[in-house]
């Protein structure tokens, strides 16, 4: 049943997993995402029979995901930055073996053990690979508790459509904050058996093998080419982004996730003061909305990219903009969330510094 509720981002995501017919969750506690495991442990099995298992580590979780995903089930894990680092080998295997699954990273401040406060320092890791070899995850970046819920069924659909791991890259603030969320109607768990899944070989089909080992270089290159061709298709068809007040904008703020929302506020205050600011927010970090941003960049004077890191997405912004407009950067690190006034201040600073 559809329902309106006040929920934490992590809980909304967990609730969405149950509602989207997820078959299994494997995870390990880490702040600021433990509510996902806790919520699922409390409600999931009893409601839909979904498997929920606390693993002994993130290494075990992701390899449980590998095994279960290999049976064609809807499978997921979630963690936060250090845990996601531990999963990287497994994620690379999953990408190479072309297994659908959902991995959620509720990003906290790093490097190292870092801080449990929100950050966006894992952009490179999520978007550029993270593990070894040439592979890509489809990366969705929610900006609200609503999207923490809505992106879950979307992630599963994309994962199965492309037989590719999908990551929801959130952050500690989105995970912890409470907002009202419109919960979608619960879907029953699927019973269909994927033709490639290892579920036991019946007499009338060849055996199915899930592997990422292709020892002959020619074969390994073929596999790589096939993956790359898939990624090119994904880049063509799965780009998602949002623009706010961009039609007449002279200055553009680019940001993803939580920061994009803070940018909306900054832009609003700026407009009240007569500065025409627009906000461009990628919803898919991979595939990155390069074409749309390129188009937009021809119409603005310059761009300020804002992130909770030392400048990661800004590299993709610059690649997309291709020099059409100057791209400035403002970042906070270590768990500090920038304020709207701070962002607007940065923009004005650049203006008074001669950038008009």
């Amino acid at each position, binding site marked *: 049943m559809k329902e309106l509720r006040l929920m934490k981002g992590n809980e909304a995501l967990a609730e969405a997993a149950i509602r989207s017919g997820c078959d299994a969750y494997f995870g390990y506690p880490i702040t600021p995402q433990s509510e996902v495991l806790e919520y699922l442990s409390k409600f999931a099995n009893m409601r839909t029979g979904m*498997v929920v298992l606390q693993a002994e580590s993130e290494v075990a979780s992701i*390899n449980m995901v590998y*095994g279960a995903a290999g049976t064609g089930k809807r499978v997921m894990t979630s963690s936060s930055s250090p845990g996601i680092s531990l999963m990287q080998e497994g994620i690379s295997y999953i990408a190479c073996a072309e297994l659908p699954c959902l991995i959620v990273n509720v990003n906290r401040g790093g490097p190292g053990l870092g801080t449990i406060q929100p950050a966006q320092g894992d952009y490179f890791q999520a978007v550029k690979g993270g593990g070894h070899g040439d592979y890509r995850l489809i990366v969705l970046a929610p900006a609200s508790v609503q999207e923490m819920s809505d992106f879950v069924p979307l992630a599963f659909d994309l994962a199965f459509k492309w037989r590719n791991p999908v990551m929801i890259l959130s952050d500690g603030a989105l995970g912890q904050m409470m907002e009202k969320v419109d919960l979608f109607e619960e879907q029953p768990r699927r019973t269909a058996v994927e033709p490639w899944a290892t579920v036991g070989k019946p007499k009338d089909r060849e055996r199915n093998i899930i*592997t990422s080992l292709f020892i002959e270089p020619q074969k390994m290159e073929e596999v790589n080419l096939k993956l790359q061709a898939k990624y090119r298709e994904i880049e063509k068809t799965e780009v998602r982004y949002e623009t706010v007040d961009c039609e007449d904008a002279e200055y553009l703020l680019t940001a993803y996730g939580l920061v994009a929302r803070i940018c909306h506020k900054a832009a609003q205050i700026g407009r009240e003061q007569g500065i025409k600011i627009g906000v461009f927010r990628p919803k898919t970090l991979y595939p990155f909305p390069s074409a749309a941003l390129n188009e937009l960049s021809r119409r603005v004077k310059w761009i300020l990219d804002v992130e909770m890191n030392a400048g990661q997405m800004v590299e993709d912004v610059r690649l997309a903009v291709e020099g059409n407009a100057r791209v400035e950067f403002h970042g906070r690190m270590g768990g500090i969330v920038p304020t709207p006034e701070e962002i607007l201040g940065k923009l004005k600073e650049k203006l008074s510094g001669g950038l008009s």
Partner: protein
Amino acid sequence: MNERTMLSEERHFENMIQAESICTAENLVYERPGTLLDVTMHYCPGCGHGVAHRLLMEVVDELGIQSQTIGIAPVGCSVFAYNYMNIDMQEAAHGRATAAATGIKRVLPEKYVFTYQGDGDLAAIGTGETIHTCNRGENILIVFINNGVYGMTGGQMAPTTLPGMKTTTSPYGRDVKVQGYPLKIADIVATLPGSFYVTRQAVHTPAYVRKAKKAMLKSFQYQKLGKGTCFIEIVSNCPSNWKMTPVESNRWVKEHMLPYYPLGDLKVPSEKETAQ
């Protein structure tokens, strides 16, 4: 090709002709199990992996569970196990076979699931997964091939390498003061309440091969009961990295490996526990 090899080639050819005349239907006492694929294995001559593969597939055939069985290959010499077994299989990351097996078994509890792992895979990099999988009592079979070395990577020291045993990374013999002691992981697994049946077997003589097969048969039958993990260690050989002939390596198993890793059951369920 030198003269000696030419001579042995000729002899080999003669043997083959002889063998062909013996291989008639009425003389047949031994056949390839249907689920073992008719392909040449990549294992070195005399290696225990091939025997263990065969036994597993014999048991799958005898129980008629090909369509219900999912196997997991490790990273190690047996990484290609899926090339020989005609069942659905997954190849797991190094040490993570039991985690992958857990994932499979949890979503397909009716199916038979087994892992097949070497000592580096199961008792070094995968120790955590091994212990926790058995401690959760996952209803799977773990087949553990203990050959005292890392075969695939060229004979480095394994957690199971015997004291004094020479490997490429213990070239003067394993010094337990520096490199620690050989790990008897089956003994540890046997202490865990989640394990149901734990046994140590070998495949260096026909009599032991038959015993090992019985252990596998029992383990698959136990899996249906859903009462915990079955764990079969097979003390095996690695003629190539031990730098021995197959015959010498089997003798070495008997004289050196078995005194340290004595064969037999480490944990057996009671009759009450195995009653359906």
